[in-house]
């Protein structure tokens, strides 16, 4: 375990997620979330009242419900009053806040959750409201079109081709066949995918993530508490997030310097560290995986999105937290000694978070369930 000198050890000790679907339309947000909260707490044996800090991530714009996170708190059991916080971002950033809280010594355990019911609105249109309201918002550029501009820039630069993009889609959705939580699984071959019409040239339907309703939750714990709660904690050896200029016309859309810097600060490139065996990347559009692999310096020795990734289920606001949970679960199951998780926010990979998860060898071979 390579936690940096003097820093508290913090680990992911539990992870749960919904079976992601196109529309959970008979469930309110709290009804969708509650089984996930129960599952993640039950797997640690902790009651909500024994959690020192709770942090959630969600966005009212998705379902058009003001202060929906206060309703979601009903599912936690927030009385007597608990220490609680919320970010209007993906749950990966809520996890970052909880991690910092534990690092300061203010908490020993934390519950992190996030959810999104994107099915209530027209997601590509809703996401235009996250854009600069002076120069971009009045044009209503939908999220698929903006991602298509980024894909075109990558194609023009020779960084990828349409065949590679179809390969990313096929690989992701085939991998999702082993993931019971995935919304889409299985895929025709690359040649068949390339016969389909464009959705937003140069993107075809397979290049685009599904619209998903879903939720996820993680429990974090420090040092010996983590060792007590689970046999094989997934230690967070480093985590960092960085942001770039908002305007897509100012940035080089074929690169992600913010991802690279966050990875460096998270210790991914530390001298002597082995490459991660697993990478869970929050790349909702196929071409974005190309950008992230380059920024994270991933080669063929790393399995990318063995869960299927966001191309198989993209619950907005939870999809980044799911990446951390999936990477941690691989470490906890003994399938990886070192894994990297990535989350993104904003148009065309504007803001990026990188977490490195590691096993300390405890509960190793022979003890696998």
């Amino acid at each position, binding site marked *: 375990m390579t936690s940096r000198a003097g820093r508290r050890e913090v680990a992911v000790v539990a992870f749960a997620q919904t079976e992601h679907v196109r529309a959970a339309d008979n469930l*309110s947000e709290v009804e969708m979330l*509650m089984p996930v909260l129960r599952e993640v707490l039950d797997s640690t044996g902790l009651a909500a009242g024994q959690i020192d800090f709770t942090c959630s991530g969600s966005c009212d714009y998705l379902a058009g419900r003001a202060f929906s996170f206060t309703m979601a708190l009903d599912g936690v059991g927030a009385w007597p009053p608990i220490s609680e916080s919320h970010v209007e971002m993906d749950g990966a950033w809520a996890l970052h806040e909880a991690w910092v809280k534990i690092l300061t010594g203010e908490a020993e355990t934390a519950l992190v959750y996030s959810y999104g019911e994107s099915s209530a609105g027209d997601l590509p249109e809703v996401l235009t409201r996250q854009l600069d309201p002076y120069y971009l918002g009045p044009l*209503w550029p939908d999220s698929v079109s903006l991602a298509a501009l980024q894909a075109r820039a990558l194609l023009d630069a020779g960084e990828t081709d349409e065949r590679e993009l179809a390969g990313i889609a096929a690989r992701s959705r085939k991998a999702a066949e082993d993931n019971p939580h995935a919304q889409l699984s299985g895929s025709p071959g690359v040649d068949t995918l390339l016969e389909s019409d464009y959705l937003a040239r140069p993107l075809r339907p397979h290049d685009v993530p599904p619209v998903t309703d879903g939720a996820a939750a993680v429990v974090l714990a420090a040092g010996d508490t983590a060792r007590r709660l689970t046999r094989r904690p997934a230690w967070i050896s480093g985590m960092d997030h960085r942001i770039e200029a908002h305007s897509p016309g100012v940035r080089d859309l074929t690169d992600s310097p913010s991802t690279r810097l966050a990875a460096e600060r998270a210790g991914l490139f530390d001298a002597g560290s082995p490459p991660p065996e697993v990478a869970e990347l929050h790349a909702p559009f196929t071409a974005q995986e190309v950008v992230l692999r380059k920024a994270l310096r991933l080669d063929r020795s790393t399995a990318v999105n063995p869960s299927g990734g966001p191309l198989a289920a993209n619950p907005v606001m939870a999809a980044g937290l799911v990446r951390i949970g999936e990477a941690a679960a691989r470490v906890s199951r003994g399938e990886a000694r070192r894994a990297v998780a990535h989350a993104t926010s904003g148009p065309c990979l504007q803001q990026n978070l990188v977490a490195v998860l590691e096993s300390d060898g405890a509960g190793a071979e022979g003890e696998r369930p």
Partner: protein
Amino acid sequence: MNAAPSHKVLSAPLVVEFPFTRSLGPVQSAFLTGLRERTVLGVKASDGRTLVPPTEYDPVTAEELRDLVEVGRTGTVTTWSWNDRPRRGQPLRHPFAWVLVRLDGADTALLHALDAPEGPQAVNTGMRVRIRWAEHRSGAITDIACFEPDDSVPSTHRAQPHPGEFADPVTGIVAEARLDYTYTPGRAQTRYLDALTTRRTLGERCPRCHKVYVPPRGACPTCGVPTGEQVEVGPRGTVTTFCVVNIKAKGLDIEVPYVYAHIALDGAGLALHGRIAGIPYDQVRMGLRVEPVWTEGGRYPDHYRPTGEPDADYETYKELL
């Protein structure tokens, strides 16, 4: 009692509109006023680049930027995508290309639409385009109607210093926005709304603390567990607390003063609110026993009126205040 499970999923259209009024900084004001006057301004960044559209602060160093320059009205496409099905609010109603355009003299690109009637085959990165101005301009990014193909050669246009001063500058914008949703209330609230159609009020009991929630939201906020058991409460209840309303609400045809109260329906673990009528406003009191009054076709009680029973003892509702 347990109601039969509701198989019908309730849903209703929900429209959210939010016309934000936003003020402009000096650079944004000059840029948008310039568009109104068919002049495109950029700003010099700390590293010498010319940013178009211009920002108030340097995207790298965060320094305040103020040196404005004028750039060309023609430029080069740096990337594009094809939009077959334009959405509400987008610049053109027929299929068009989204483009990032680096205007002549600028070092960064501006997002807009490209009108390409010949289709995506006629669009490519590196193609030359020019601004098509909107007929009516007000000082907004939409003063550029769109771009259109241009046969000019890439020019060596140099950005020229510009004072950024115009008569009657634009100092703010109204950012109109409308989003359409389909609202679905979930299982617990669907059962509650279904019961109301037969003038019954359905709460849900927490299996742990046994409190009955009305209206139910599917979870006990104290215990954090699902509330699966449906319990019919009321119809009578007790006023736990109240206020006298003296201001007429917009669009509400109720004479003031009137009383708005918290009412604990018999069997409920918390109070809901409703209007009290059928009694002079200054005679309403804590502990008053009331019952709902429905109007023909009403989806919820119009108001509550006294039942004539003796007032409830404070001890019976003090936990429900």
